[in-house]
């Protein structure tokens, strides 16, 4: 009898606990519904209308926006630019990031100062990064052209942002500079947890530094690299600020990625409905990546 009562009491307590849990999560749920779920649904809804941005007057057009955008060349060129940017900047981030992490893992002089300096580009505002790089890229007084001419690499000042393929290369490089510290920190943390014995054993077996890198370091880093690549691929794909501020999508539309296209469509061409359709398509493209990443994270947890 007492046993049953204790059990009843326990379930009562459990129920009260889950009530408390719901109460504590309520603010989160409310905010989520108001600023994320509702806008997300209305983004899909808006994409079925033709809306003139200044007056916000709309008329139902069904799936017409999607039909138009898929047959328009601009969507495909933007998608192409988006993929070039993402693959380009991501590979540089990974190569520089892993390399720099390996260097900083060694016992170099003033290591923590070096680490702070490396980390800094990641944390500064994109606006600051862009202003600084525009000044470095300046065709008349920019230090970059001056240094390259002095070094004999080029004869004439280069137009870094105003012509192709320079503009795309510059954007990719600045992106790599800004975001590779993320890779450095993540890889560095993993490097520090590789047991020293592995290296000792390999040394005894006569493995050189290069063999040790490929046989021990790289396999140990594999897991964390997969996570970093997925995360950064998602973030780079949706990057807006950096490209918008550096080139504005130009020259003409050669660096215009999908987020820039959405912005242009909504606020320069005043086609809010069409812009929503672009945004929804862009999200669908990313969805595959996002779901893979989420599934992976969740399975790791449980």
């Amino acid at each position: 009898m007492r046993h049953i009562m204790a059990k009843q009491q326990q379930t009562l307590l459990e129920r009260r606990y889950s009530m408390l849990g719901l109460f504590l999560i309520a603010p989160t749920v409310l905010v989520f519904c108001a600023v994320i779920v509702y806008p997300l649904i209305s983004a899909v809804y808006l994409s079925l209308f033709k809306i003139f941005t200044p007056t916000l007057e709309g008329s139902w057009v069904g799936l017409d926006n999607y039909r138009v955008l898929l047959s328009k060349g601009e969507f495909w060129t933007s998608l192409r630019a988006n993929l070039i940017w993402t693959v380009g900047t991501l590979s540089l981030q990974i190569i520089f990031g892993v390399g720099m992490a390996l260097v900083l893992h060694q016992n170099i002089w003033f290591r923590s100062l070096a680490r702070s300096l490396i980390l800094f580009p990641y944390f500064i505002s994109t606006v600051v990064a862009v202003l600084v790089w525009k000044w470095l890229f300046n065709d008349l007084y920019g230090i970059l052209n001056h240094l390259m001419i002095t070094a004999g690499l080029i004869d004439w000042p280069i137009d870094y942002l105003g012509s192709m393929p320079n503009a795309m290369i510059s954007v990719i490089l600045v992106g790599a500079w800004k975001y590779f510290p993320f890779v450095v920190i993540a890889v560095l943390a993993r490097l520090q947890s590789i047991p020293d014995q592995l290296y000792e054993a390999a040394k005894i077996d006569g493995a050189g530094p290069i063999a040790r890198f490929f046989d021990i370091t790289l396999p140990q880093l594999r897991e964390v690299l997969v996570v970093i690549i997925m995360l950064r691929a998602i973030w780079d794909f949706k990057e807006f600020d950096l490209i918008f501020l550096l080139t504005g999508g130009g020259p003409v539309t050669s660096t215009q990625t999908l987020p820039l296209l959405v912005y242009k469509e909504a606020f320069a061409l005043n086609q809010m409905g069409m812009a929503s359709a672009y945004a929804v398509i862009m999200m669908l493209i990313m969805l595959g990546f996002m779901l893979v990443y989420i599934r992976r994270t969740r399975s790791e947890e449980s």
Partner: protein
Amino acid sequence: MARKILFNIFAWMVVLMVAFPLFWMLVTSVKPQFELFRRPPSMLPETVTFEHYWRLLSDTNFLGYFWNSVILSTATTFVVVTIATIGAYSLVRFRYRGRETLAFLVLFTYLLPSVVLILPLYLMLVELGLSNTITSLVIAYTTFALPYALWLLRSFMAGIPEDLESAALVDGATRLGAFKDVILPQLLPGIISTALFTFILSWNEYLYALVLVNSDESRPLTTGVMNMLISSFNIEWSLLMAASVMMSVPLIIVFAFLQSYLTRGFGAGGVKG
């Protein structure tokens, strides 16, 4: 030994190359105007001047933007971290239906591109009559800051051993009492690091500020400074570099005094996902 020295020199050369743009920003901001356009450019300024900083503070609306950014980022951080702390506590330590779905939604929105949300949010805030206000930006910033903070705090919370809480409950504490006396002190470093990240994220945000605010009264630093670039007839680089340095001051402070919190946040959110 010689190899070690060579490696050190190589390593530091790379580090200095990465840091060079920031060094150049600092140098440009303290060079007098005539030295700026000299050929070849001087690596270190021959005369150091703070005239650009002075002009920035007295002739432009920089201080106004700065103040807006301080209010905006502080408000966002406060709102987001408060909601996320109790939310993360609930997600990690309570059992109820829909909990897993919610955790999934948090991670999903953490990865969601803001261009998808920005159009409906724009319409919503215009309808509410909030466009061109700092409040509208605080609301918009929660869309990316809240999932982010929840995700970070969730993994910090998961790192606190459950025994501590159980012990307090056995001693007769209520759930909320245990939260206040046992969990919060343990979570404090995580809260600080989440707050720092949220603050930096809001401080640096550009797209929402560009779309939602179109008046100098409530413009934050990012769009404000960019406007100085676009609207000026001839670009004054030293002024812009001074603005960039000033804009990074809060970051430099965080870096100088609170860097361990940043690294900790990286470990919790960035790597584990």
